[in-house]
């Protein structure tokens, strides 16, 4: 009896829905943009988390905002679960609406990007990380491990206890690779040891702080958080315990001006702006990974906090420059490589 009623309830719902759909279908153009706007350059972003996370996703948000400002482009973003099964539709929605450039801001979006890219040859699909390529599909990959390696060398000469602690959000390439690079750089001085830990969260500032304090209790005097805003808890702990820290992904010196020695900087906004310009000009060539490393000094570098400029030993800077030359010359292979070239 109950089931019959239920079916009735739902049948009514669906009858209504289909009725309304029938009325709506003849005029789907009503919701799409008028033809006059066809010339507008449109950029879409699939963000695997809140865009105001003061970390990974905010960087992507800043990228489309920069493109909007510099090129007068129409930009849009969607915050989507970091669950690869759901992103294919979002890629298609943007492509369907004539977006010329779509950024999928996670390596795990690459499978979906590859499938959708085949159907929309006039749209360029970019993934932040990944290895899949196609005529209109390319991953943007920063060589984070190499930059972090150089920062690790500075750390190696700034530590007194010889112990550093890396605090990652989750073990994804954008975190694990630079942490491995830092570790290798830090351990270039014999006897130094860098431990890598994970807090399994990007938002839990308390966990970031406690992870740093756990390290401090074990004698660590340098912490390297790479966990979006959760990492800022580690800076707070470092300030309170008067030890040192390194920033990651952007220049974070201002967050703890007398604690953060230097930060790795990966300028996604500039990189995406440059790509956007190529796409608009019609000169963009896909088919290969867009790798950005130390050779691009404006986009991937170590930003040293002015407060520490004079406090870093000359020997450290000398080793830093030597290692940089070797990496650029291809003589030094840094651990934590993302994908084969």
């Amino acid at each position, binding site marked *: 009896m109950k089931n019959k009623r239920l079916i009735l309830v739902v049948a009514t719902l669906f009858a209504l829905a289909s009725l309304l759909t029938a009325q709506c279908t003849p005029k789907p153009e009503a919701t799409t943009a008028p033809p006059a706007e066809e010339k507008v350059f449109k950029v879409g972003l699939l963000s695997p988390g*809140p865009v*105001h*996370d*003061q970390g990974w996703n905010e960087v992507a948000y800043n990228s489309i905002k920069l493109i909007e400002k510099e090129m007068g482009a129409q930009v849009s973003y969607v915050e989507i679960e970091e669950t690869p099964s759901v992103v294919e539709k979002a890629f298609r929605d943007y492509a369907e609406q004539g977006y010329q450039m779509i950024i999928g801001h996670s390596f795990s979006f690459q499978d979906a990007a590859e499938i959708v890219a085949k159907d929309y040859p006039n749209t360029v699909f970019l993934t932040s990380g990944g290895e899949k390529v196609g005529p209109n599909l390319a991953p943007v990959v920063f060589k984070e491990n190499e930059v972090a390696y150089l920062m690790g060398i500075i750390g190696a000469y700034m530590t007194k206890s010889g112990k550093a*602690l890396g605090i990652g959000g989750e073990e994804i390439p954008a975190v694990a690779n630079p942490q491995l690079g830092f570790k290798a750089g830090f351990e270039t001085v014999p006897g130094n040891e860098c*431990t890598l*830990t*994970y*807090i*399994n*969260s990007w*938002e*839990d*500032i*308390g*966990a*970031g*702080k*406690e*992870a740093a*304090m*756990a*390290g*401090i*209790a*074990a004698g*660590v005097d340098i912490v390297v958080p790479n966990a*979006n*805003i959760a990492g*800022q*808890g580690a800076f*707070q702990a470092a300030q309170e315990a008067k030890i040192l820290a390194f920033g990651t992904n952007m220049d974070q010196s201002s967050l703890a001006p007398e604690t953060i020695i230097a930060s790795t900087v990966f300028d996604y906004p500039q990189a995406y702006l440059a790509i956007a310009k190529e796409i608009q000009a019609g000169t963009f060539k896909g088919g290969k990974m867009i790798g950005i490393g130390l050779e691009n000094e404006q986009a991937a570098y170590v930003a040293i906090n002015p407060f520490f400029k004079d406090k870093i030993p000359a020997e450290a800077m000398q080793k830093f420059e030597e290692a940089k030359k070797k990496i650029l010359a291809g003589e030094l292979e840094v651990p934590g490589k993302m994908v084969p070239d």
Partner: protein
Amino acid sequence: MELIALLSATVRMATPLIFVAIGETYSERAGVMNIGLEGLMLIGAITAYTAVFFTGSLFFGLIAAMLAAMLFGFGFAYLAVTIKANQIVTGAALNMIGLGVSGFIYRVVFANTGIVSAVKTLPAIPLPFLSEIPFAGPILFNQNALVYFVFILTPITAFVLNKTSLGLSIRAVGEHPRAVDSVGLPVFRLRYGCILFAAALAGLGGAYLPIAHANQFVEGLTAGRGFIALTMVPFAGWTIPGVFLGGLLFGAAYALQLRLQVAQLAIAYQFLQTLPYLLTLAVLILSRNRTEQPKALCVPYEAG
């Protein structure tokens, strides 16, 4: 030294859990399960952060957090008690609304205006003489005001629930609401009261995160603490001392797993991360506490 640091971290991690779990114990003893604690904590967190940011008053921030959470708690109570809507689904909706509202306030007031910054936090207040006690001093008596408050609140709430006539009424409402009604006690008002009390404590537990433990707010800052607190209540057999100990156990396991990661054991870090959950399970299995849940839990009361 390492042990002192570990236990001190335990207390810091446990404090918000205990606040929230004490409140939820009252609510569930009165027959109402509120799974929307995570949402209420987020409301408390954003309110406290915003209030402290603009007024600079930590006390005002804490009061505001409790009031804001109570406002949303009132909405929950109206649906769950008066309208008699399913408590679990209402709580799930409250979680979504809490996440949405806190995120929206954060974006409108802070992120979009570019004034994201740290706020001042509750300072550690070393208690005279007590903080000098070797070992226990730095762990228990060199903490912030909210930690002391949880130490005071635990015995008081336990006493009220078990030894007073108010506590008896609350417990009776969760077991036999009709009997309570028949002797002329206000079933609805008791349930409303417990829900609001729980909401206030959830707000306080949420406020602890951005203005005592850390000094920032971000969307989803609570990172599942509301659900852990929810688990603590049945884990502790619906008793106040139980949730206090359960909170400490969980906090200790969490602090310990971070240290085990630093110690570089030959165990995958993912398994170390599950230590708090495994330990909770183990204690649940080994303990002989098999209290049944309040009989009227999740059952709306029909007057008349």
